[in-house]
């Protein structure tokens, strides 16, 4: 599934998500619900970068909950998704939807697995079933 389609599915499934963007660790944007997601992605990267410094352990996801709404960022290797919701979202559900979105967009880039060759059928021996 393409990144844009994965994001469209995300916003359709999760009514809590007001805006979201799929992007890479280097800042390149794969898809965004915003006309220009650059400022949003840069802000989300700055948030993640600052949060990374809190501990040495790698950070995989975060939620910043404010009175105006929440910001979510989920990371899967080089791929990231950031989203904003209104105040008091259903946190577990939003994280679940964001991870599903990341997974769906990643599937589109995975090289197609080679199809397994059908097992060779043994040629029928003459005289089988007593026929001659």
């Amino acid at each position, binding site marked *: 599934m393409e990144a844009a389609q994965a994001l469209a599915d995300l916003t359709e499934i999760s009514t809590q998500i007001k805006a979201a963007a799929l992007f890479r660790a280097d800042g390149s944007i794969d898809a965004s619900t915003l006309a220009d997601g650059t400022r949003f992605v840069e*802000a989300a990267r700055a*948030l993640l970068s600052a949060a990374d410094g809190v501990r040495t352990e790698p*950070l995989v*996801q975060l939620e910043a909950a404010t009175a*105006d709404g929440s910001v979510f960022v989920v990371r899967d290797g080089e791929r990231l998704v950031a989203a*904003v919701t209104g105040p008091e979202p259903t946190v577990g559900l939003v994280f679940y939807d964001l991870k599903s979105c990341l997974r769906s967009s990643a599937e589109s880039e995975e090289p197609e697995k080679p199809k397994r060759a059908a097992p060779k059928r043994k040629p029928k021996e003459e005289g089988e079933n007593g026929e001659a």
Partner: protein
Amino acid sequence: MRRKLLVLLAAAGAVLASVAFFRRGGARRERVDLYFADGSMVSLGEGPDAERLLALGRTTLDAAR
């Protein structure tokens, strides 16, 4: 009659107090929850780290508008 009124007032007071408690201290508290690869989670509600991250969170929210 007076006793009934007192019970009613006490019940109304309890309801109002619980509503105020949940609205002030519960879900509306501003915080940043960080989830790490080892499965651990840190919730920052106050302190310099929390303030810095919440400010960045507000900037991100503004950028999404």
